[in-house]
């Protein structure tokens, strides 16, 4: 009897960079605008596009909540206190 092999640990999915995401969105819109995509492909592209839009919106949100000015010393203190990733 063979033990079922344990599933390989899922590779951590690297989120696309903002640049990659916007480039892919342009491709998707181009494909949709061409009208050549079938129903399933259209729905798949729309689903993928919405996920990318959410990703881009989150990236923009992260740099849109108000300018935060810190001195280097303050940043270091925060990082040492473990709150440095709190962000703006």
């Amino acid at each position, binding site marked *: 009897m063979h033990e079922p092999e344990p599933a390989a640990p899922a590779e951590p999915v690297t989120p696309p*960079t903002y640049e990659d995401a916007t480039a892919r969105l342009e491709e998707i819109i181009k494909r*949709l605008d061409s009208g050549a995509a079938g129903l399933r492909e259209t729905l798949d592209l729309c689903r993928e596009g919405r996920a990318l*839009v959410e990703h881009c*919106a989150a990236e923009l949100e992260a*740099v849109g909540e108000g300018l935060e000015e*810190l*001195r280097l010393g303050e*940043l270091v203190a925060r990082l040492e206190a473990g709150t440095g990733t709190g962000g703006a």
Partner: protein
Amino acid sequence: MADSRTRPAGIDGSPLPGPFGVGAYAAKLREYLRARSRVQLFGEIWNLRVSPTKVYCELRDADGAVPCSMWRTDFDALRLGDQALTDGAQVVVAGGPDYYAGSRTSSPSFSFAITALRVAGEGDLLAQLDRLRKTLHAEGLFAPQKLLPRPPLPRTIGVVTGESGKARDDVLAGLRRRGWQGRLVWAFAPVQDRHAAPRIGAALQDLTATGAVDVIIVARGGGSLADLFCFCDETLCRTVALLGVPVIASVGHHTDRTLIDDVAALSCSTPTHAAESALPVHCAQARADVLAIARRLDVHGRRALLHRAQALARLSRAPGEHLAGERRRLHQRLREIRAAGRRRLETEHARSARKAIVLDRKAHAGAVEARGGGRLDALALALAAHDPERALERGYALVTDRSGDVLTSARAARRAGDVRLRFGDAELDATITDDDARA
């Protein structure tokens, strides 16, 4: 000599001679200095100032400095270009020490009186810079920063600049112009002269060490090349070249590139431009673009479903429409067939009529012929004598059962029970009531 009446008493207990009048001493000092040997010196020129009569500067090297002066006429006679004696330029001068004794209303000053000057060709600052630039380039140190990926939307931007300089405001203005509102980390450092270089290098390394900074701007508001000499420091430039975070340099010098401009990922002419370059994405514009894309995706999604639903609806109606079409075609066929039948009947009828006429004519012709012979008439009379209708007209009746079979005997009539009596003018139904028939 000072008047003895105005000369004060000396310091009690001092073994030194005097006191002497300061003017007399100053004159003696000038005389003494002017008696020193005339020599040639070399070093870097700094702080050159030109007045109507004299030119002042300092001659410096790593071990010390001497204030210098030169008559304006001698200086002008050298016909040096504007850039020849920028701060830091290496020169050789000839002359000797001199002393301006001053007076009650003017300050004294010591200077090395220059009588001749030569710019030391290869030793000047720009030539040094050029050599260092070639060395760094040959070592491939211009490339690493340019190969670093620069994030399009940095969340944290580090800025190395002077705390009180205008560059600080310019960087902020550039970031605001891009609609960026992330985290800005200031690493203030002196940004002038050679002593600043180690502080700038340390600030860059500290920012990088946090691991939280996506891009670093090094900014200064401009100045002479000598002011910006710290940005040509070899150690600083090597530090920048090997830094793991992209550095955008903006040290604001339009005519000469500093070495940090060469090793940095990007070199910009102003701090504002550097800030904008740190943000390839215009945040406000990008927000509008993403919103527009989201809307277009929605439209595409909805339209795709709507079109398919309409197509499906068309398809679902198709069988019914097909049947209706077939039905219409069949009805049409039927009408055509009926019409064709009617036409055929009419045609046949017309043909029959024509045949009847022909037959009639033939019969008429036959009768005429028969009358000629008389035989046909005799046969007709004999036939008529046997016609049962004639007998019925004379009062006989024909008895049949209900199915029309002729009953030729009383027994057959009894068996049938219900009979039909056919007279010459009509038929009557009758029932045999004879008792024997029921027996």
